[in-house]
C-alpha cells in the first residue's frame, strides 16, 4: 500500500498524510535493518565453523611442517613433552577408541531398551516423569562424572578385580556410557514415535506382541533415526574430556585392554593446556593436530552413519 494514496480526508489533513508517508518509509528502512541484523546473527554460526576449521588446519599445518605425517600416523609412541619427542598419534587414538567402545557397549543397549520401553510400553504419566529425570543425566557437569568414576566406581570395580589400577579405561568408559544414555534413548524414542500408527496396528492385528512389534517392525522402520542416535552417542563419547582425564589417566598407552589406564586425545589436550606452553612451540601445535584427528574421527563416523542411513532408509 502506498501511503500517499490514502484518502487525505480520512487522515484529517494533507500534512498528516505526508508525515504518515514519511513514517512508513522510515518504518520500511527499520524493517530492513532489523532483518539484516538477524541475518548476520544466523550467518554468525557459519563463521564459527569457518573459525574452527581455519584454526585447526593452520596450526596443524605448522605442526606437520616439523613432523612427518607418516610418523604421526604410524609411530607407536607419543612423547611430545619428553627429551626426545616422538609423535605417533596411535596410542591416543586407541585410548579414545577403547574408552568410547566401553561407553557404547553400555549406552547403546541400555539406550535402545529404554527407548523401546518409553515409546511402546510406558503410559503417558510414567513417560512424563521418567524422561526429564533421565535427561538430567546429560545435564550433570562432566567433571562431576569424572569424580564419580575415579572415587566411587573404580574402588567398587577394584573390589571385584583387585588387579585394576587406580586409573583405568573401564571405569571411565562405564560412567561415560551412563552419561550418554539420554542422547541415545531420546533420539531413538523420537524415531520410533515417528513411525506411523497404522504400521504398528498392522503388526498388532497379525497377533504380534509389543516386543515383537518393537523389534521386528519398529526398529527396522525407525532404523535411520536410531542410527543417528548411535552416531551422536559415538561423537559424544569420542569428544568427552573430563571423565577420561580424571579417571583414565594422562599416560599415553598403546593398548586395547580396558583394564589399563591410557590417555585419550582429549585428555592429552587438557594435559598440555594445564602446563604453561609457549605459543608457537611444537607441543602447542600438537594439541591442534590432536584436535584435528578428533574431528576427522567424528567426521568419518558421521559419514559412515550417513551412508548406513541412506542404505536402510524407509520412507512412508
Amino acid at each position, binding site marked *: 500500500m502506498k501511503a500517499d494514496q490514502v484518502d487525505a480526508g480520512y487522515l484529517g489533513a494533507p500534512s498528516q498524510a505526508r508525515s504518515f508517508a514519511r513514517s512508513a518509509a522510515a518504518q520500511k528502512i*527499520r524493517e530492513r535493518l532489523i532483518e539484516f541484523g*538477524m541475518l548476520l546473527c544466523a550467518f554468525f554460526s557459519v563463521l564459527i565453523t569457518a573459525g574452527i576449521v581455519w584454526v585447526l588446519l593452520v596450526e596443524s599445518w605448522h605442526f606437520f611442517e616439523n613432523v612427518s605425517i607418516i610418523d604421526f600416523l604410524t609411530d607407536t609412541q607419543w612423547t611430545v613433552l619428553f627429551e626426545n619427542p616422538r609423535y605417533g598419534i596411535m596410542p591416543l587414538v586407541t585410548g579414545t577408541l577403547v574408552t568410547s567402545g566401553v561407553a557404547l557397549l553400555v549406552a547403546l543397549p541400555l539406550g535402545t531398551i529404554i527407548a523401546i520401553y518409553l515409546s511402546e510400553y510406558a503410559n503417558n504419566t510414567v513417560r512424563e516423569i521418567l524422561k526429564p529425570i533421565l535427561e538430567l543425566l546429560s545435564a550433570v*557437569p562432566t567433571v562431576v562424572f569424572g569424580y564419580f568414576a575415579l572415587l566411587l566406581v573404580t574402588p567398587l570395580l577394584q573390589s571385584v578385580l583387585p588387579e585394576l589400577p587406580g586409573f583405568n579405561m573401564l571405569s571411565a568408559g562405564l560412567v561415560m556410557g551412563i552419561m550418554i544414555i539420554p542422547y541415545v534413548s531420546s533420539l531413538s524414542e523420537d524415531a520410533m514415535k515417528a513411525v506411523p500408527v497404522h504400521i504398528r496396528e498392522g503388526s498388532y492385528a497379525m497377533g504380534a506382541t509389543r516386543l515383537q512389534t518393537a523389534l521386528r517392525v519398529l526398529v527396522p522402520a525407525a532404523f535411520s533415526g536410531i542410527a543417528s542416535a548411535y552416531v551422536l552417542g559415538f561423537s559424544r563419547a569420542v569428544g568427552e574430556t573430563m571423565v577420561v582425564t580424571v579417571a583414565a589417566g594422562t599416560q599415553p598407552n598403546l593398548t586395547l585392554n580396558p583394564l589399563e589406564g591410557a590417555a585419550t586425545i582429549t585428555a592429552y589436550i587438557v594435559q598440555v593446556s594445564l602446563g604453561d606452553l609457549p605459543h608457537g612451540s611444537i607441543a602447542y601445535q600438537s594439541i591442534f593436530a590432536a584436535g584435528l584427528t578428533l574431528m576427522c574421527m567424528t567426521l568419518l563416523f558421521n559419514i559412515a552413519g550417513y551412508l548406513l542411513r541412506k542404505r536402510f532408509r524407509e520412507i512412508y
Partner: protein
Amino acid sequence: MEKPSHSEIEKSVSRNKNRDKLFAVLGLLATFIGMLTLAALLADLAINGWARLQPHFFTSFPSRFAGQAGILSSWVGTILVMIVTAVAAIPIGIGAGVYLEEYAPKNWFTAMIEINIANLAGVPSIVYGLMALGLFVYQFRFGQSILSAGLTLALLILPIVIVATRESLRAVPGSMREAAYALGATKWQTTSDHILPYSMGGILTGVIIGLSRAIGETAPLITIGALTFIAFLPDSPFKAEFPFISFNWIWSPFTVLPIQMFNWVSRPQAEFHLNAAATGLVLMVLTLAMNGIAIYFRYRFRKRIKW
C-alpha cells in the same frame, strides 16, 4: 508344510507373552540404572562434601591446606563468565532463530546455515576450546581472560538457544501472524509484539538449559588457559566514582567452579577430595535447580497457552 498342533501354538503364544512381560521389566530396570546412578552420585557428593560446606568455604580463596581452602574465586569467576556468555549468546541466538524461522527464504544459503547449526551441535566442546585458543586468545589478543572464556561458552551454547527459539516460534499458530498482518502490522511488529512474547516460555527454557550446560563446562576453559589457583578477585564492576561501573573485570584471569573441582579431584591427598565433593555438590545443586526451573517453565507454558 506340517500344521502345528494346538498345544504347540498355545505354547508359542504364552512364550511370546512372557517375553513381552519380561521386556517390560527389563525396560524399567534399564531406566532405573540411569536414575540409580544419578542418586548414587548425589548421595556420594552429599556424604563426602556436606561437612565442608561451611560459610568460610564460600568466602575463602584456594589454599595449600585443604581445610582452609574455599571456592570464593571460582564462584565469582563462574558468575562473571556466565554474564559474558549470556550477554553474547542470548541476542545472537534469538536473532538467528527468529531469522531462520520467520524471515529466511527457502534457498541454498538458508539450507547451508541450517545444516551448519546441526553440525555445530555435534562438535566436541574441547574443539571449541582449541578454536578459542587460536582465535580469541592469540589472534584477537583477548588473552586468557573472562572475556575469552565467556565468548567461548557462548559459541558452545549458541546451537541450543537457536534450536529452542525455532521450536517455540514454530509452535505459535499461523493464524496469529495472519491476524497481526490483517491489522496492518509489519513483519517486525508482528514478530516482536506477538510471536516473540508467545514463545518466550520456550525460548527462556532453552536459554536456561544452555546456561546450565555452560556452567558445567570444563574442558574448553582449561584449553584457553584458565588458571587452577587464583587467590584474588577480578576488578570490581562497581566503583565509588563516576561512572560507577567499570568493565576492567572482563580482562582478568579467572577460574570457575568445575575447574576448581577438577584441580582438587586430581590431587592425590584424600583431604582435597572432600573439597572436590563439596564443590561438586554446589555445581549439582546449581545445574539441577536450573534444569528444574526449565522443566517447570516448559510444563507451565504448555499448560497455560491454549490456541
